[in-house]
């Protein structure tokens, strides 16, 4: 595609690697060449790349597809997902999943971004409900600024929970910030 057609969120293929366009800055000396300064995000590594193009340059657009899937189970260093319409299974590595793994329990619906048949990113639901496995029974010497205590959830992740939360409670968690929202049930 012509460089003029690239805009925010266009997906480009550079050196066989997919990038997403984060920002486009257009600068042009009145009589001179148009200069396009792109900030790109490497869709494999997440690294940011700044790159400059000129009018007349051409780039290769690539497409990213989104697939609704369900988390099944962990196997060695992989998380296994199943496509909700084709029932095909797709593994993603622990490194790819990163901290998001702490909010995945069996059956969690997710959206997986695929490029050329390979999963490259995962979107979790905004909130998930998880059971508290272990937390201190009560808080000693609680002050106004220390209302939260540590709670270990069924996925193994530890987050801050309010003092009244007990073992076995089910809580709603914000997956982007990793913070407690509310209690939704108890044992």
């Amino acid at each position, binding site marked *: 595609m012509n460089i003029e057609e690239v805009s925010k969120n266009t997906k480009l293929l550079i050196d066989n690697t997919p990038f997403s366009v984060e920002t486009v800055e*257009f600068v*042009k000396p*009145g*009589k*001179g060449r*148009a*200069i396009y300064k792109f900030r790109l995000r490497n869709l494999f590594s997440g690294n940011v790349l700044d790159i*400059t193009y000129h009018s007349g340059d051409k780039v290769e657009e690539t497409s990213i597809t989104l697939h609704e899937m369900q988390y099944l189970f962990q196997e060695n260093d992989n998380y296994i997902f199943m496509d909700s319409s084709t029932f095909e299974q797709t593994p993603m590595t622990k490194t790819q999943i990163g901290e998001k793994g702490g909010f995945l329990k069996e059956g969690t619906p997710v959206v997986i971004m695929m490029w050329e048949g390979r999963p490259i990113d995962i979107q979790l639901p905004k909130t998930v409900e998880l059971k508290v496995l272990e937390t201190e029974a009560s808080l000693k010497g609680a002050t106004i600024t220390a209302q939260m205590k540590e709670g270990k959830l069924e996925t193994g992740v530890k987050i801050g929970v309010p003092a009244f939360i007990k073992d076995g409670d089910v809580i709603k968690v914000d997956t982007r910030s990793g913070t407690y929202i509310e209690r939704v049930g108890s044992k």
Partner: protein
Amino acid sequence: MALEESSRLQNIKDKLEYRAKIMDGIRAFFNSEGFLEIDTPLRVPAVAPEQFIHPYTSEGWFLSTSPELQMKRLLSAGYQRIFQVCHCFRRDEHGRHHNPEFTMLEWYRAGADYRRIISDTENLVLSLAAKQGYGNVLPYQGKSIDLSLPWPRLNVRQVYLEWAGWDPFIDFDGQRFDDDLVDKIIPRFPDDRPVVILDYPRECAALARLKPGGTPVAERAEVFIAGLEIANGYSELTDPLEQEKRFRSEMAEMLKNGLPTVWPEKFIEAVKTLPECTGIALGVDRLVMLLTDSPRIDDVIAFPSDRL
């Protein structure tokens, strides 16, 4: 009317009121200097062939990228001092400081050279700032810009040698010249003073004449304020053969890139009687940005192209 549009238009009403006052100020300035206001067509059969300025086509004609060719035909017919405020169209130019349809102020003086047109520019901006209630100091984006005259003049060769480490008069490289202007030269300009850079390599001359005496230096000057390119002026090229040669070489490059071009025959004919003269084009939207302390061109245009 969508709520978002209505609130945006309400929010920029102050700026559009200032904009109208600035237009009045521009006309008052040129009337007092004895200029005639001109109104040339926006849809034309040919525009100046310039490799990096791309016109929109319109039923086989073009939307004007600049009123220059028609204004010079008036000069050739004996008009001495003319000015015009009009819309210009340049395809694919969209960004923080660009809208593909923008407002240009262009004026010409017969019997003078680029030094005179730069001093007109200084006087004009100073008079508009005064009308806005500023003295010599213009506040812009947290900076104070000292407008007192004369503005510093910087020589193109010197700034490239000093800040970019090469001499564009030896082995000219157009892409490097443009990249360095953006990345190395403009960021070094003082942020509290306007700057005039002048005397360009002949390859950047476009429609400017070369300094007398067979030098490769074009009498071209550009005005920058707060890093914004505000105006571009020339001692105009009046040699019809040289003009024809330059246009032919631009057109050859454009044909290679598949860009539409039409030979501006009537203009070339008029250059034969073009008197010694100087002219400058000033971006009105950017000037309004400066005088209303606005960071984006969209802030001073009621309907930028992506909101139509």
